[in-house]
């Protein structure tokens, strides 16, 4: 066997290990963006990662907005107009045969109300509300559920500090139920 005969396989292995152009670690594809560029898209607010914007809104302002933009589907007091969801009441029903899952009885975090209203409500015209309006609506919905007083005026810090009644109502996934 000549040197060339046994050397070729070794060379091929060496090329596959370090010189093949097919799969670089990074590809240099995509355009760098700055946070300022994407501010209009960056609208998430959450209990653990922040994101609540400046501004504030109170229960009274929230009621005016709610009556105009929300009550047609969700009822005058958040009782819901079928098939649209009920938003208030239901506390103490989760362990009964007829649980009523609302913001007040079920949702673990108040910040989620702000995040959801800001991105997805009102249903026919989402992302049409300003941040002060979303704070006000959030305050009113929490008031309808007996979680904040009628005088509440919420901003980022005060909303993040609200403790929801069902905060500890969730458990990790412990399936499967059919057994193994």
């Amino acid at each position: 066997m000549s040197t060339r005969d046994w050397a070729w396989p070794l060379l091929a292995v060496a090329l596959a290990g370090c010189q093949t152009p097919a799969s670089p670690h990074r590809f240099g594809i995509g355009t760098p963006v700055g946070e300022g560029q994407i501010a209009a898209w960056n609208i998430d607010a959450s209990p653990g990662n922040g994101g609540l914007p400046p501004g504030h809104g109170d229960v009274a302002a929230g009621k005016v907005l709610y009556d105009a933009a929300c009550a047609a589907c969700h009822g005058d007091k958040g009782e819901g107009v079928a098939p649209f969801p009920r938003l208030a009441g239901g506390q103490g029903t989760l362990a009964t045969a007829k649980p009523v899952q609302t913001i007040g009885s079920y949702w673990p975090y108040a910040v989620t109300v702000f995040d959801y209203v800001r991105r997805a409500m009102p249903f026919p015209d989402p992302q049409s509300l300003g941040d002060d309006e979303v704070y006000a609506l959030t305050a009113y919905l929490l008031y309808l559920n007996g979680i904040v007083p009628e005088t509440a005026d919420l901003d980022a810090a005060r909303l993040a500090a609200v403790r929801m009644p069902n905060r500890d109502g969730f458990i990790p996934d412990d399936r499967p139920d059919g057994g193994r």
Partner: protein
Amino acid sequence: MTDIDRRRLLKFGLAAGAAAGIGVTGRAKAAEGEFILPERASGLGRPVLNPPYGQPSPFEKNVIRRTWTKGPLEQGSSMTPLADLHGIVTPNGLHFERHHSGVPELDPDHHRLVLHGLVRQPLSFSLNDLLRFPSVSRIWVMECSGNGNSEWAKPTRDSVQGTHGLMSCCEWTGVPLATLLDEAGLLPGAQWVLAEGADSAAMTRSVPLAKALDDALVAYAQNGEALRPEQGYPIRLFLPGFEGNMNVKWLRRLKVAEQPFYGREETAKYTDLLPNGKARIFSFEMDVKSVITRPSAGHLLKEHGFREIVGLAWSGRGRISRVEVSTDGGASWQPARLQEPVLDKCLTRFTFPWVWQGEPAILQSRAVDDTGEVQPSRAQLVAAVGVNSYYHYNAIQSWKVAPGGEVTNVHA
């Protein structure tokens, strides 16, 4: 030339003569049961490109998605007609739909995917950018975790489309999410990825980083062609085996963070209430499940004798390892034949030979996956989680066959 050949030729000649306006009259009516060639207005059928994008035969006009949604259909769902489909791949026009604020119309030339948060270099990608990356193509099932939620308390829907049709299976092609995360460079503390759509609801879900780095795909194609608008055109997230809602359509933004975002879709919805008032959260995987699609509710068995039982089995946790069929309401079980290919997190077709002579029967199927998870009976499932969990209903389905051949949805 045989006698039959001569007769066929004669009839063809008569039909062609009539079509050409020769005015042949007095043609004898074909004898009962005799096969005759069809009469046609012209000797030719439709030309090519008519239409340029092919459509099913007009005789298949009832093979369509249907909805049971109450309220505005922009926030509704439509279901796949499983009883009328024959393989493991769902045609693109029949893939189930679930929208939260309607289908947006997105121009792929202007759509961008932004990846930011706990990454070294935030990036935006055009569709053209995504098409340059190494790609993956896999056949995967997707099931809405609300599939079957009408069936917890009592048998409700009158077809397998209504009981199981929030489930479809396609070949999905795209870029592994891990590749994009690597391109941007994960920073210490990264544990979750928020996925957000460009629909009017800007729908969001939090994805655990382990899944994002495992088999998650940013998909741009479905069964070989661009995604359908109702499936997220131009790009969607695909998380094999995870509940349908997490496969965010019209994907616009991915944000890497330390904590889950506890959005409305993963707290108020897509959590599973238990009898003690506690609810499971982040219950992502779809459990092992199967259903007989033929015969199924709404069918009428007109003939006695042999007919093949056909069904589908799947698991969000792995491959199907076994399916058993019962024709006596679960009193006895026999193995079904699994048809290859049997793929990970994909529909597996099963068949079972059956001779029916008009006796009452209750048809059931029970699947086991390669994690060993066994599809539960409804009684087992209800004993474990009650009837108010809403999501993740994977109980054994029962179809009752009456002596007259009517097939109905029952709890047995």
